[in-house]
């Protein structure tokens, strides 16, 4: 096995997680937990693929995916921001809604055959760097490169710009922001929309670049849930989110690839001969997500790892304190 090849594919696979994680990060930084990432990703993957089949233009596919997923996210926004309902319940139902819609509209898409995909290319000069060049800058999809840009841009936006300052205030202490004339409701709608669009982009990245095609709910295979876990792991920081997303992308590839060869490092490959070991490996990312979510749901721990203080709480104007 050539590990640089696995890592190269891992980066591509991690880009899916990256978009979804950064999107959820924006939403949570504004104080809205959206557990519907998986559903929005399915919407994105399905609409990107079917638009591309219909029009032959994958760029249009990406655009439609982002808009459609963003639109779906606004259902959640309306329920939790305007109607002030429980964010967990609404987010879960968004997952089911997204999955349902994409399965119905995606009926028959799996037999549609091949479509025009987004371009892959290498970056001149950078590709010459030993190992790094091969892993990060050789024959990657254009979306992977976009991911590299998104991380520092997101960090800069959140930490060094005026709208970023307002975003953080809205997630930490909405009444303080409101008292100074910031429209908390509008901001929260907007960032839930951003989260939806990036989840849609994550879906499009799967169906148009990383593993092209539509395989109903297996297309995303629970990556939306991993993204939610990664936001906690990342402690709401884009750079840490990138580290987590790429590490998990690489792990996913490794788990797939390690089960292939008959001989591993000179021994009979146990993962090939014992399928249960393979199942165990495949379970690991989800197990990790469960552990992170359990840790992240503890009130004391959330304060310690720096969760946005108002995360999960609806903002009601005129209530004292938070």
């Amino acid at each position, binding site marked *: 096995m050539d590990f640089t090849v696995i890592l190269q594919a891992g980066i591509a696979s991690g880009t899916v997680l990256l978009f979804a994680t950064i999107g959820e990060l924006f939403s949570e930084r504004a104080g809205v937990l959206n557990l519907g990432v998986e559903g929005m990703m399915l919407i994105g993957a399905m609409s990107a693929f079917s638009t591309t089949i219909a029009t032959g233009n994958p760029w249009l596919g990406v655009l439609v995916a982002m808009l459609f997923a963003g639109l779906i996210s606004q259902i959640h926004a309306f329920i939790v921001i305007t109607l002030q309902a429980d964010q967990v319940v609404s987010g879960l139902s968004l997952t089911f809604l997204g999955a349902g819609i994409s399965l119905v509209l995606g009926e028959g898409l799996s037999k549609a055959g091949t479509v025009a995909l987004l371009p892959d290319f290498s970056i001149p000069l950078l590709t010459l760097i030993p190992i790094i060049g091969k892993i990060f800058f050789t024959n990657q999809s254009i979306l992977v490169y976009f991911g590299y840009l998104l991380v520092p841009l997101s960090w800069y936006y959140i930490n060094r710009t005026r709208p970023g300052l307002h975003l953080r*205030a809205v997630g930490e202490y909405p009444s303080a*922001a409101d008292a*100074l004339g910031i429209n908390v409701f509008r901001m929260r709608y907007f960032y839930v929309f951003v989260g939806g669009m990036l989840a849609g982009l994550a879906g499009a990245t799967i169906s148009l670049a990383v593993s092209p095609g539509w395989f109903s709910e297996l297309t995303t295979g629970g990556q939306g849930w991993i993204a939610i876990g990664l936001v906690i792991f990342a402690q709401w920081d884009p750079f840490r989110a990138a580290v987590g997303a790429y590490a998990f992308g690489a792990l996913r590839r490794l788990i797939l690839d390690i089960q292939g060869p008959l001989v591993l490092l000179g021994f009979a490959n146990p993962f090939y001969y014992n399928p249960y070991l393979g199942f165990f490996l495949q379970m690991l990312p989800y197990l990790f997500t469960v552990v992170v979510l359990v840790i992240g749901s503890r009130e004391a721990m959330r304060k310690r790892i720096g969760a946005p203080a108002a995360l999960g709480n609806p903002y009601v104007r005129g209530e004292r304190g938070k």
Partner: protein
Amino acid sequence: MTEQTSSTEQKLIIEMRGIVKRFPGVLANDHVDFKLLHGEIHGLLGENGAGKSTLMNVLAGLYRQEAGTILVNGEPKIFSSPRDAIKSGIGMVHQHFMLVPSQTVTENVLLGLDEPRFIMRLPDYDSNIAELGEQFGLKVDPRAKVWQLSVGEQQRVEILKMLYRGVDVLIMDEPTAVLAPQEIEGLFDTLRAMIAQGKSVIFISHKLQEVSAIADRVSVLRKGVATASGVASKGVSRQELARLMVGRDIIFALDKKPCQPGEIVLDVRDIYAENDKGLPALRGLSLNVRAGEIVGVAGVAGNGQSELSQVISGMRQCKKGQVLLGGDTVSNHSTLFGIQHGMAYVPEDRNHVGSAPNLSITDNIIMKKYRKSPILKNGLLDMKAATKLANELKQAYDIIVPNVSTPVRLLSGGNLQRVILAREISGLPSFMVAVQPTRGLDVGAIEGVHRLLLTQREAGAAVLLVSEELEELLSLCDRVYVIYEGKIMGEIMIKGEGHDEGLVDTIGQMMTGTPLDQIQKEGVVANG
């Protein structure tokens, strides 16, 4: 200052005419008139619930009045948000600070402004804000995160926020409630610096001596009605102001019998504990309380008082050390264990920790008694006995409600506190810890709570009173410990009536981190 108070020479900057503001069931402001002169500090006095904050929230654009007009420099204005009020030069510093804890001072000041447009070069603004602070004697590091700041520093950030927005009129809502005596002096200096630079200040307070000390003129509200409007503070006595506030003469001294301390009941030995964020809150704290005495814990809010009371009551684990109640270790046990050993607890948050808001008075009363007869009968609750008990306590503790099935969330602060005290005291505790038991209560209710605490002391119980009101501690307690950053700075005996300025000054120094032995050493050096 006395020359300034002659109103004929000074320009009227704000005039509020016939302001009416209603809340469900309450007429908070009943045709109130209020006038602010340019360059004055105007004290706004009143009991809690008299409507002073409401009136000022109307002026600051947070509430909209139902009737009445606001004139700024003679022009009528309608404020639909605090932003409008700030544009007209009126800013308010609220009692509960509106600061984002995870952001820096500069970020908090810039929050909500149109400048900078997009990219923030924070270092540039840091120096602007430091300069502005210098100008008004508001020392605070612009790069510090708000959660790292003391409450006094946070208040300075709030003031800076308003000054940066260029307000001419600053409304301060109970600004001294959270400050140590030295910090209060600093605040007063800042307010005077603002006046000297042509600004005006409205100072809301229920503390008479402060208003007399700082204000040029005073207005008094009682039950939503202005009982005095713009009288010169020099020409009116404290007694007179008190009568205007309360509507009757209040007795400033409590009837307190000499202390007869008995055995040590509560013994806190060298405890260490963390706060919710996992940071050290208590670091090697020791204290004790004897039977028949009230012992106070003084300190500026957030120095470990909450954690201390939680460790004692069993609601928080301690890392090291132990709490002994009547010789038995109660720390790191359940709260039930403490209750069975005679512990009573009057928590800081009476709405959520002290009571279950949606349950009735009866349910709240029996919360510590349902395990035993007469409430427990054949393994079931005897609701008849419970109602009977609740009615008895309602009588005995003067809880004013139509009936005991009323959910406690509908009670006023004073009534709710009486329900909690009734529950705790009727269990005949050997020890009681009370945290801020009078916060937010009106003068009458405060008197009632004080009397109940003194009755406990006379009945031979040990009482630990945690409070941020120095006055309260000095008038009730036999001894006072001063807490600073989770450590005891020293212990002071309170001897009967009348406390001297030196004592307040010493406690003030301890509240800001100077241990008592150091103060005494320096005192000896200075005297010798």
